[in-house]
């Protein structure tokens, strides 16, 4: 039997000190994260420019999604937003696909025991390097290399080689998108490669050895061992890249000359920025910016859920189902036996 002292010790809870220690984080989190989040929702139901205090219901949403709202430019606003949304997907897709293919190829080469690549460490560092540079510097670098006229490096090189007119790398709607995709790929493939490498190295080497002994060639090993077992990491990469891609702001925004921002690079994040960051409060469209933020949040949430649903571990789910079924049957059998197990 426990003594009085022992039971007292059991009843002492140290939980409150724990709460105390985590309190600062939650306080700051609420103030800087939760409240702005809620406030974005509130703003998305309020008006724009001089009408910014009024509650306008779903007007901002109907305007930017369907072109039906109070403002005279509702149709134009919808067109701009949808173009921005389109640009976002194009830019994301255009940098994600080459990036994942390149990273996968390099990751497999770098981890393959048979390919004895000299200077692996050096290549890893060099390939990861672009990721360390800030997007601002990268944009400045590329804008200065690929400027539109003969005064910039690449065009002056091409024109000296005999080209008649400079290529508009920065302002042409198609070429500039291609440039941004290329820069994004260049920036991020090193990071993705490191992630995939860690995934591949997590696969037990005995599987590869066994496959070797069974006579599987490299492509069979890749498609039947590496890829299936790499799936969790791939899903992680896909989801993080998608979230990052839908919020893509820095490069599309910075990749332009002077003050003439090219609309063909306007992503949703840039759209949001342009609408709230326009001089004084009376000039800004907080309502549109808020609504666009909420829409992009919803899209991210939906796409994220779909990805997770499609990539869930089907074997585990099937097993769980089986186990549940077995439990049910057992219970049913127990009931039939009048609750007596013999």
């Amino acid at each position: 039997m426990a003594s009085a002292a022992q039971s007292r010790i059991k009843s002492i809870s140290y939980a409150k000190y724990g709460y105390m220690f985590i309190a600062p984080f939650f306080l700051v989190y609420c103030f800087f994260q939760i409240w702005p989040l809620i406030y974005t929702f509130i703003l998305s139901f309020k008006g724009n420019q001089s009408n910014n205090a009024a509650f306008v219901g779903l007007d901002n949403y109907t305007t930017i999604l369907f072109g039906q709202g109070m403002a005279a430019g509702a149709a134009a606003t919808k067109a701009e937003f949808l173009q921005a949304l389109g640009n976002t997907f194009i830019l994301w897709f255009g940098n994600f696909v080459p990036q994942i293919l390149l990273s996968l190829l390099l990751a497999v080469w770098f981890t393959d025991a048979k390919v004895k690549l000299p200077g692996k460490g050096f290549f890893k560092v060099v390939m990861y390097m672009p990721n360390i540079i800030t997007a601002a510097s990268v944009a400045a670098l590329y804008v200065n290399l690929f400027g539109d006229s003969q005064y910039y490096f690449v065009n002056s090189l091409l024109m000296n080689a005999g080209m008649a007119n400079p290529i508009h790398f920065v302002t042409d709607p198609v070429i500039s998108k291609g440039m941004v995709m290329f820069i994004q790929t260049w920036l991020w493939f090193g990071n993705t490669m490191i992630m995939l490498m860690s995934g591949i190295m997590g696969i037990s080497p005995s599987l590869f050895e066994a496959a070797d002994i069974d006579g599987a060639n490299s492509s069979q090993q890749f498609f039947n061992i590496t890829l299936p077992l790499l799936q969790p990491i791939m899903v992680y990469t896909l989801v993080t890249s998608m979230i990052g891609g839908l919020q893509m702001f820095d490069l599309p925004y910075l990749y332009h000359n002077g003050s003439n921002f090219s609309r063909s690079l306007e992503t949703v994040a840039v759209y949001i920025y342009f609408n709230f960051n326009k001089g004084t409060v009376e000039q800004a469209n907080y309502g549109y910016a808020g609504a666009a933020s909420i829409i992009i949040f919803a899209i991210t949430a939906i796409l994220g859920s779909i990805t997770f649903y499609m990539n869930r571990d089907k074997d585990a789910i099937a097993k769980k189902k089986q186990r549940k079924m077995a439990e049910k049957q057992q219970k049913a059998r127990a009931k039939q036996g009048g609750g007596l197990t013999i």
Partner: protein
Amino acid sequence: MSKLKRTLALLATLAVTSTAFVACGDKKEDSNASPAENNNSSVADDANAGDADADADANADADANADADADADADADADAPAAVGGEISLPDTDDVLTIVCWTDTDLNNMFDIYTPVQASEVKYQNCGGNGTEASTQYANYLNSGDDVDLFVAEAGWILNYINDDSMSAPMEQLGISTADYADAYQYTVEIGTDNNGVLKAASWQAAAGGWAYNATLAEQYLGVTSEDDMQKKVSNWDNFKATAEELKTASDGAVTMTVSLGGLWQAFSTAQNAAWVDGTTINTGIASDFVAMAKEYVDGGYIDPSVEQWSTEWENYGKDGKTLGYFFSTWCLGEGAQLDTNCGTEGNWRLIQGPQEYFWGGSWLCVSPNCNTATEAANFIRTFTCNADTMEEYALYSGDFANNKVAMNKIIADGSNSNPSLGGQDQFAVLAGVAEGIKMSDSISKYDQNLKDTLLNTLKDNISEDADTILQKFTDQALADNTDLNA
């Protein structure tokens, strides 16, 4: 023991929480600590060692402002402009006068003149950018709570600031009234007055503009040797276009008439004499006329539309002799300004009135409601916007057309100004007539900057489209940007 632990935990918690909120501070007194200032602000040296005393006196006498003025001035040089006029009701609690600007060319010139007479430290904070970008940077800076006493606002967006009492304070609070601007160009006072008739801003310049051309190229391709002959060749828009065609043929397309659409727009829009926005309706007539004109010039090959106004490339056109001329306003003509950087100081450029008398922007000094160096601020404003002697000095020193008729007429009469980039020509004599005629106050609206940017960008991006498409794209973008407006 456990009490000690609890206390420690509590202290640690408090420390973490309070440091997390440290950046929320709303007023930073010591703006010197801000790292951003290292590269883009300049601190004018203190005038004399007695400054500290002057400030101490000024602080002690904060209530009796007249005394504070006297003390501050007593320690400054003898020829300091006396702070006369009305009573100053803003506080005098800081010893650094901070002026927020978006370009530092003018302020550097002003500081050179102001340094000998200043009573406390004067510095500027350059927010950078131009147009809408500058206005946005300002809003961010002014809302950040960092020290600001005065700020410089441009014609394109000043109305957003002077009509907002949380952004600007009446000049009256510095003891300055409309009566102090009897010799100023009247339009600057009208624009500096807000919707309620309160004087909120004062300008040091009358932003008259002319057309600067390369005399060497003019002689080579057009056979023109004097300014009068050149003026005849570009005296109106028809002549301007005919000369552009002549130049194109003579130079085989190697030299354009002018560079970007921006300058053309300024000269053109002045002639419209109408506001961009009438009530809440966009005046698309202005845009459609300009689109037609721009198409004509671009299709004719008189202008290269891909060049960004103010860019390095835009400068190179002048330096490399690839353009005959630029539309330059007064603030382009000073030392270190565009004339200097685009055209060099070899002196083979000349200024004439060009096809259209026009004016371009102009800057106003506004008072922040948080101004806490009132005496110095009032002195600064008076020195560069009211005092004919110092404004004459400033005009001669900087090449900027000062906003004071007495000073400017004296310079022109004395013949005391000569601009080396213009081969010794006096640009003020050319611009004086234009400055008299500026009637800008009826034709500016708070949407100007945004609409102008939108029009020029739309034109640049879609110049190969037909005029109707360009106009439609402009209207769409303008309406999408400004929910207050309709077409």
